[in-house]
């Protein structure tokens, strides 16, 4: 991508190291964009820094996606950030164990995360600490399970109507 030339993820990582020290990890990718791994309990502080630092100014969260990694028994969240003023992009990743899937919410930093986080909770069961209204968004209230998990089993009936053929 063109915007990478302005500031590569590696440079941003070096820049962030000064403030966050050991917390972050840089993962180079062979295909697609390289990313930075953030621990779930410091996501909000990192997000705030990324948005407000004059050298970074990541003012939009393009996309926030939940992922289930069944081999590692983990859930993950991927953040795609973009800065309209500096024209660079960045990918952040958070990994949490499936037994205790808690990530700090970034709803207060980027408003768009509100619905994205609700969707990740609905479809994958990731809990976002600090989200003001973490309810199901696509499936109805009272739906069983989180459909996008790889081991999801469809419930047989909903309100007395069969979900199968």
């Amino acid at each position, binding site marked *: 991508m063109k915007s990478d030339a302005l500031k590569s993820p590696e440079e941003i990582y070096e820049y962030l190291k000064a403030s966050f020290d050991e917390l972050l990890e840089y993962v180079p990718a062979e295909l697609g964009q390289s990313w930075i791994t953030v621990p779930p309990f410091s996501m909000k502080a990192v997000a705030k820094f990324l948005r407000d630092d004059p050298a970074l100014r990541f003012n939009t969260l393009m996309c926030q996606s939940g992922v289930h990694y069944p081999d590692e028994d983990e859930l993950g969240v991927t953040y795609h950030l973009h800065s309209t003023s500096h024209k660079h992009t960045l990918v952040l990743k958070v990994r949490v164990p499936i037994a205790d899937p808690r990530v700090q919410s970034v709803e207060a930093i980027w408003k768009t995360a509100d619905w994205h986080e609700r969707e990740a909770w609905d479809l994958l069961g990731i809990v976002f600490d600090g989200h003001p209204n973490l309810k199901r968004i*696509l*499936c*109805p209230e009272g739906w069983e399970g989180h*459909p996008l998990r790889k081991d*999801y089993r*469809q*419930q047989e009936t*909903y*309100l007395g*109507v*069969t*979900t*199968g*053929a």
Partner: protein
Amino acid sequence: MGLLDKKYHDSNIIIVPLENALNWARKSSLWYEQFGLACCAIEMMATAASHYDFDRFGILPRSSPRQADVMIVAGTVTMKMASRIERLYEQMSEPRYVISMGSCSNSGGPYWEHGYHVLKGVDKVIPVDVYVPGCPPRPEALLEGFLKLQERITNETVVESKPDGK
């Protein structure tokens, strides 16, 4: 009046069975409920708009189910929507008809296998009179569905025969 212009005198009387007259009137003014669900709704709109023109069959959209004769289920019915469709159907007054438009509302269509949140056919919650196949059906197909429904209405009995047979 077009073809009928100046063809009859004012003293002419047409004799027709009451049932035929009633059914003719009913089938010529099918008001449908303006209610789109998914992709098929766009084709439904195209059928109602300038090119295909529903109006020439007396088919007009109504915004309230209480004023509608026929409900076109145009699109995918999800589990969340199923109970609402049932409610809307109950609000329609008799006689009422349902046209199931497109594969999704016929059987779940492309979402048949993995669609955990998709109802596999609207006939699981409400009775359907005409099924229109296609994904999405062309406007001509929807019109054909209406013609089939008209055929059905023509053959219906609305007049009750007297109990003593007189």
